[in-house]
């Protein structure tokens, strides 16, 4: 089975700090990592490959330094790695990104299954997967918590807020994976050695993947960032006074107001 896994190198947003003086994000020195959901998607691909055989190509769009996560992906079991890197992609919103990724997938060639992580922890949109599926004209299944591979098709458990659906889909198709799909694994020492000594990261430009330039980049993106700011920090809280009954009442009305009373 030919699987293409899309991954992204992201800043570790758990390590991001706010500059107390300017109230802006301190982006320097923030370690970069492979996006968690994408890693789960890759590990799932390796599981599938171990079961039914095939080839895994891992794909990413980013600056040259994104080669690091592609190298990590090779160490985790991917066979080939492609980085599409070009100034023309800069400033792309999710629509433009999906056009680039979709074009790259077309350039890579045959595929049976496209695996994406559900959501990246910097953009937090969860949009590139479905938009790429639409660009390529393949069916999509999002929020996958389990994938079973059968001849020419897959059976996927799609998580919903209150349970899950079981969906069957013919290949090729695109699936976005959530972190519950499998346990995190680490690249083995053998995997790391192979990734650094035997495998390659192939860097391609916008020219190479023959993407229509009017579909990518900052100026062609339908959405643009107008402004960004940091949310206000946590100040001193207030102590609720009163009897148990009274404070409980206050808490319940607070929860009602903020609509934090659980399900749908």
């Amino acid at each position: 089975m030919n699987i293409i896994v899309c991954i992204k190198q992201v800043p570790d947003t758990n390590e991001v700090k706010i500059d107390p003086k300017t109230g802006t994000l301190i982006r320097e020195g923030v370690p970069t990592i492979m996006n968690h959901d994408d890693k789960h998607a890759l590990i799932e691909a390796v599981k599938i490959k171990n079961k039914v055989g095939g080839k895994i190509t891992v794909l990413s769009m980013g600056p040259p330094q994104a080669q690091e996560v592609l190298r990590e992906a090779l160490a985790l079991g991917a066979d080939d790695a492609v980085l599409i890197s070009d100034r023309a992609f800069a400033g792309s919103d999710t629509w433009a990104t999906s056009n680039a990724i979709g074009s790259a997938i077309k350039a890579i060639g045959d595929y049976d299954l496209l695996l994406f992580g559900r959501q990246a922890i910097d953009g937090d949109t969860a949009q590139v997967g479905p938009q790429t599926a639409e660009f390529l004209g393949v069916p999509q299944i999002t929020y996958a918590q389990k994938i079973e591979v059968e001849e020419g098709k897959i059976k996927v458990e799609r998580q919903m807020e209150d349970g899950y659906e079981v969906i069957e889909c013919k290949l090729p198709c695109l699936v976005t994976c959530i972190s519950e799909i499998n346990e995190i694994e680490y690249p083995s020492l053998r995997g790391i050695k192979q990734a650094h000594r035997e495998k390659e990261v192939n860097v391609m430009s916008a020219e190479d993947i023959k993407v229509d330039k009017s579909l990518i980049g900052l100026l062609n993106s339908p959405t643009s960032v107008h402004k960004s700011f940091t949310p206000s920090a946590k100040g001193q809280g207030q102590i609720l006074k009163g009897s148990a009954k009274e404070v409980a009442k206050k808490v319940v009305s607070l929860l009602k107001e903020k609509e934090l009373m659980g399900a749908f």
Partner: protein
Amino acid sequence: MNFDFTPEQLAIKKMISEFADSEVKPYAAEFDQECKFPVEPIKKLSKLGVMGMSIPEKYGGAELDNISQTIIMDELSRVCASTSVTMGAHVSLCCFPLINYGTEDQKKKFLPKLASGEYLGAFALTEPAAGSDAVNVQTTAIRDGDEYIINGNKIFITNGGKADLVNFVATTDKGKKHNGLSIFTIETKDLKGFSLGKKEDKLGLRGSNTQELIFQDMSVPKENLVGGIEGKGFKISMGVFNSGRIGIGVQGVGIAQGAFDECIKYVQEREQFGRKLHKFQAIQFMLSEMATKIDAARLLCLRAADLKDKGRNYIKAAAMAKYYGSDVAMEVTRQAIQIHGGYGYMKDYPLERFYRDAKITEIYEGTTEVQKLVVAMALMGKTIG
């Protein structure tokens, strides 16, 4: 002189660091407080190939260079010295005789299982009367036809009570003194004449298993004499310790690093007299000294590993690395508790564990005193006799 790691070494460092933080660190306190053997971490390390990191690829190992091995020991010790010594005793001590002196048959038979982690290994030299004075081994191996009959006991053996395979030192010819020692390999399962003795209750490394091995008319086939020639035992043992020394030095560095990392966090959170601790010069000086010492100790270990990778004589370098690394471990863990004040003394915080774990690095695999002798000999142009 290149002070940077290669991309491959960096990738190994990243992997083992993340592994250590996620899969070992959360359980380190439990291993220590309940004297629990780190079963899960060792299982997972096996899967990653770490338990076979010193074994050549043709026998199923990862065949890592010594710098990479040093990195791994460093990162694991940073979070749990009990786990790192369990791994280290297997990788550096037990595997060494077979890798470097084993016959092809012995390598084929034992190394793959050690590499995969199917077997946990131990190396048994120490006896009640033979500590620093390694030659004074009393365990006898008497040839009887196609076997050797072994009688004696070994104490303080790391992984002793859990090992599937033990490489031990016995005397095959008492008259020949250090030329009369030999090393044998045993598989412990259902082995007649092999039994376990006292399990030690230790100050630190309380998750690591330290136990007595008892050999009573235990018969070992002659094929299991490591290298096939009697009398090489002392030379092999010295090789084991010279090589393992770097690992212990960096274990000390790792323990110190773990304690130091806690301090960096603490001094940015704790406030007294209206200021965070890191604003006080006394604290700043302490942190600077600790950081410098850790760096220096680590560099000594890496230098020794580099010499070893290049196939050059690393005996003096390894001895320096071991004694300085353990020195730094003692100093830094002591200061780390001090920086935490009362909290440092409480088991809620890991500092007291780092402090207790550090001590053994000055003692095992050659005491600090022995290391200094080794360095002195090298300075005077002699090797230890």
